[in-house]
């Protein structure tokens, strides 16, 4: 008998004595928040949560975006981008003489090559105000998971309507089979005396621009 059959057989016999079916799952928790996506209270909550995690965050208007990107990247000399990033964002990132590298054009960057690049600029898929979480799914402007992981600085451009109030609202917007990365602040550890230290292996700085 294969191990698969053995394990499944053990499970079936362990459950054989069950007589009553389990009760249904009560879903009385809050699924849709009080405030619609992108509304001022949702943005305010998102900013509060991000600041609490030591992320840098600015709320801007669309016409401020290019300058804001340039300012956010002040200390970064080289930037990696996904091939399908909005050209306007790419152009802003290239200001002040920064070197741009586009992943996959012409070649897919190795981890070692990515490690030599200072920063990455991406968009995102959805963000959750209640828990200060930004989700990437590899969609337009977000790139492979590696490009948002290896560089030490991650700048995310979020659009207000992408920010939802609750976790359930965000989960409903996600495509499960895409590679998903949820980010709540920069990398951190609490392994020494439960004291939180921001910045270990992932990007040590997370900067977020919220475009209203």
């Amino acid at each position, binding site marked *: 008998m*294969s*191990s698969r059959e*053995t*394990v*499944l057989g*053990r*499970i079936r016999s*362990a*459950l054989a004595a*069950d007589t009553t079916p*389990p*009760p*249904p*799952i*009560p*879903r*009385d*928790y809050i699924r849709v928040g009080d405030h619609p996506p992108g509304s001022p209270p949702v943005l305010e909550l998102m900013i509060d949560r991000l600041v*609490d*995690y030591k992320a840098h965050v600015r709320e801007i208007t669309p016409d401020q975006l290019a300058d804001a990107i340039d300012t956010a990247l002040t200390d970064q000399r080289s930037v990696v981008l996904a091939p399908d990033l909005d050209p306007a964002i790419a152009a802003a990132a290239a200001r002040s003489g920064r070197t741009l590298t586009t992943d*996959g054009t012409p070649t*897919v960057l190795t*981890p*070692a090559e990515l*490690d030599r690049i200072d920063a990455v600029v991406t968009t995102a898929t959805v963000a959750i105000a*209640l*828990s*200060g979480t930004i989700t990437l799914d*590899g969609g337009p402007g977000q790139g*492979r*998971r590696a490009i948002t*992981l*290896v560089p030490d600085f991650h700048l995310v451009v979020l659009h207000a309507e992408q920010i939802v109030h609750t*976790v*359930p609202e965000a*989960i*409903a917007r996600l495509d*499960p*089979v*895409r*590679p*998903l*990365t*949820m*980010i*709540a*602040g920069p*990398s951190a*550890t*609490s*392994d*020494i*005396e*439960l004291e939180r*230290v921001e*910045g*270990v*292996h*992932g*990007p040590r700085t997370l900067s977020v621009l919220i475009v209203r």
Partner: protein
Amino acid sequence: MSTFLGIPRRHAAQEESPLRGALPFPKAARRELANDQLRRNLAHATSVIRSKRALVVDEMPDWEALRDAGAATKTQVMSNLPALLEQFEANVTARGGVVHWATDAQEANRIVTELVRAQGVDEVIKVKSMATQEIGLNEYLEDNGIAAVETDLAELIVQLGHDTPSHILVPAIHRNRTEVRDIFLAEMEDAPADLTDEPRRLAMAAREHLRRKFLASKVAISGTNFGIAETGTIGVVESEGNGRMCVTLPETLITVMGIEKILPTFTDLEVFLQLLPRSSTGERMNPYTSLWTGVTPGDGPQNFHLILLDNGRTNALADQVGRAALHCIRCSACLNVCPVYERTGGHAYGSVYPGPIGAVLTPQLTGMHGHHDVNSTLPYASSLCGACYDVCPVKIPIPDLLVELRGRAVDADRGRTIPGGWDAAMKAAAWIMSDPTRFAAAEKGLAAGRLVAGRDKKIKHLPFPGSAWTHTKDMPAPPKQTFRQWWKETHHE
């Protein structure tokens, strides 16, 4: 020269393993309690995390509703497990993953070793994972010439310190910053000579130490927090980014998953991604969560192997009461509030699963093989104060499970030729306490206790087993008159 008389026979079930220590809990606890530094470290760390958790749980108006949903989901998972596992396996396979099944630790270890060898490497990077600790994977790989590098900071501290984990979430919770610095200076070849004990400096030293390995490794090994049956999606929840490194950069990813980690639908994450971070690190959300489904062409590992692990889980499942321990999502909230854990630390439990949940999960995974089995003492490692149940995000009734398992530990010993002192005492007490005449007679005998009391009506020394009490505290002398005697005198009916 073949006389083995007097050499104790080594009971098969007594062998030390990641799920079974060398000493019964009371003895191991005594050893740990003697370490004042450990107790200070634990008291500090558990109080910090308790208050962090309380803050982020109290701000959730729907916390109890989330717990109810989490608990009911897990109950459903257990009762539908065969169908959910088959659905999960089919979805992982359809998306390019390879699914393996392991009945026990030995089989899981062998599968992993073969997969690593097939990639032609002798070093792998690892994300912190309870499942791989439970099966002793690192030791097995080492015996087979493969180095497994732990990349979680706490696991690295444990590994470099030639130590064992003492907490599910924060395996080095028993170490303070100064001890961590000393371990790094002694064991980490590239540690800066001027390293201080500041947590930030220590974390940066770990970053430098591991960076090269992340960028160059071809094979990574992970556990998992969730496996979604409906989609075949795997989830790993972490903080440092070491998990993202492992599940993203290498060409080959091997994930070991306990069969109880299944969730039916992707939507269920809306509950568990709220319950887990707030319960475990006391954060609204952990910094990083990775979710992947099979293989994504052009992004991440192109070889993905998933090992579904039984290793005693079906033993637990067979018990309709005890199986609730399988609902555990490894948040470790119960450890942080447990007054026993706070004093003894995790090593006293002898298992990779310490604390209240460990005291109910471990003996079910291994079975309890009579009173000589150290794991038979684990269900007694609790004063049944109930703090664990109150914080459990999936409402596992841990005190009830402890009581049930105590019952099974006692039952397992029934019919043995030499009953323990407890057996005789409890049987006698039941005989007395189920009859008022016998109880009144016993109360008369108790009055003799007045003779051993001092003039201050306190008993300072009792014979064994009462000595366990009077070693640290006094016992009041029995009163001159019991309540029922007083009642008879004062209430004529």
